[in-house]
């Protein structure tokens, strides 16, 4: 952990995940420091036509209630947000969400690339992007966008992933600052939290 230089300039964390990421997300959310100050914005692949259940399942163990934002909802500090089923979720200048039903991207809606890419555009170097386990290449370009804008990039260690395609694709297209196991990501959040106290 000591190798990572952290500071309190970050404004948001964005997480992408697909097949095999659910347990990791649960672990991260359940061990989140109380009062963690940044919004956590998540785009996770999910069944397109099941509107209910997912956010509830994530919320059971999460320290903070997870919500699926409405179109044009303002992003709050410390909020934990999940892209709703069958919508792409973008972040707009002015710090709010915008949803859309555009064509699928990488065979996905929500597409991780869209959420990560718009976060990178809005938060630039003040963003932390995390990409977890997954079976396709969605999210790789988004991670590149984050890196290109000066944000911090983290992928789940492919060795630990149930399916390593997604983090590997990101490692192949851009510079990734840290490769971490989920437990290390949990600690990372704790360290990050300290920077704001």
């Amino acid at each position, binding site marked *: 952990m000591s190798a990572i230089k952290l500071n309190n300039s970050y404004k948001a964390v964005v997480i992408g995940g697909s097949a095999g990421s659910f347990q990791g997300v649960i672990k991260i959310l359940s061990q989140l420091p109380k009062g963690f100050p940044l919004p956590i914005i998540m785009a996770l692949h999910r069944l397109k*036509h099941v*509107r209910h259940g997912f956010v509830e399942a994530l919320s059971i163990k999460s320290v903070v209630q997870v919500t*699926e*934002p*409405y*179109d*044009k*909802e303002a992003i709050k500090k410390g909020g934990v947000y999940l892209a*709703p089923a069958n*919508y*792409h979720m*973008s*972040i*707009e*200048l002015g710090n709010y969400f*915008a*949803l*859309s*039903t*555009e*064509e699928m991207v990488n065979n996905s809606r929500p597409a991780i690339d*869209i959420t990560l890419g*718009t976060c990178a*555009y809005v938060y630039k170097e003040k963003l932390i992007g995390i990409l977890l386990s997954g079976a396709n290449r969605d999210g790789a370009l988004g991670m590149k966008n984050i890196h290109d804008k000066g944000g911090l990039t983290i992928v789940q260690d492919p060795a630990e992933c149930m399916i390593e395609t997604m983090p590997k694709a990101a490692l192949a297209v851009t510079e990734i600052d840290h490769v971490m196991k989920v437990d290390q990501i949990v600690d990372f959040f704790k360290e990050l939290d300290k920077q704001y106290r």
Partner: protein
Amino acid sequence: MQDIDIADLKRITELVYQKYNYDFRNYAMSSFKRRMLRIMELKKLTVDTLLKKLTDTPNFIYEFLDELTVNVTEMFRDPSFWRVMREEIIPSILLNHKNFKIWHAGCSSGEEVLSMAIMLKEMGIHQDVTLFATDLDINILERARAATYHVKNMELNEKNYIRFQGNATLKDYYKEENGYAVFNKDLLMNVTFRKHDLVLGEVFNKFDLVLCRNVMIYFNQSLQNEVLKKFHESLFKYGYLCIGSKESLIWCDYASRFIVVNNEEKIYKKIKD
């Protein structure tokens, strides 16, 4: 992929507004930007050649509008919404009117209005209802009139219909021809398709029920606010307005003139003029 900055997006929307009288200046930035990048990629254009094409080739505007608008839709999208329509909203309208009027604003390729027609038919009141289906995009209206969809889209439509718990099967309403599902045209007998722009267009009629689902998500908040005023004016008192399941109107000036009838399905009722 190329990028496009806000100044360039403004040049495009200004030109389209000045020359063609379509106003995209208050569309949501992130999706509008993706649409412009998509058009540029599909048509192999840069910002400058796109502007030139819009300036020099008047007919290009229709292609431009067709690509710019997001036409993705489904039959019986959100089946639970349609069950509430059938079990609560339509019966409550019928308490006061045998004949009534419905407006599908932003009808895209027609799946939503066709779903409505099928539901009304199954309720036995198809002949008593007048429907208007409008969109900005004339190409998509042509597709809506044809009521013909690729069979590969039908799997999803069938699934939704089953979850809606209709009293037939969707196959009873169409014939398969060369890989397309061609819907029975009688379903559309009371439907008027027409071009209408929610941003610059006038209020053109009064309705008992307005559906505008997944259209205003492409607008910014100030435009949503303006368009809600038009819907308010287009509704009879105690008429219903339905928006997409992830939309909200609570921040609009006119929100207080509506009550929420069903928050889960985003159905509102006009209670004040």
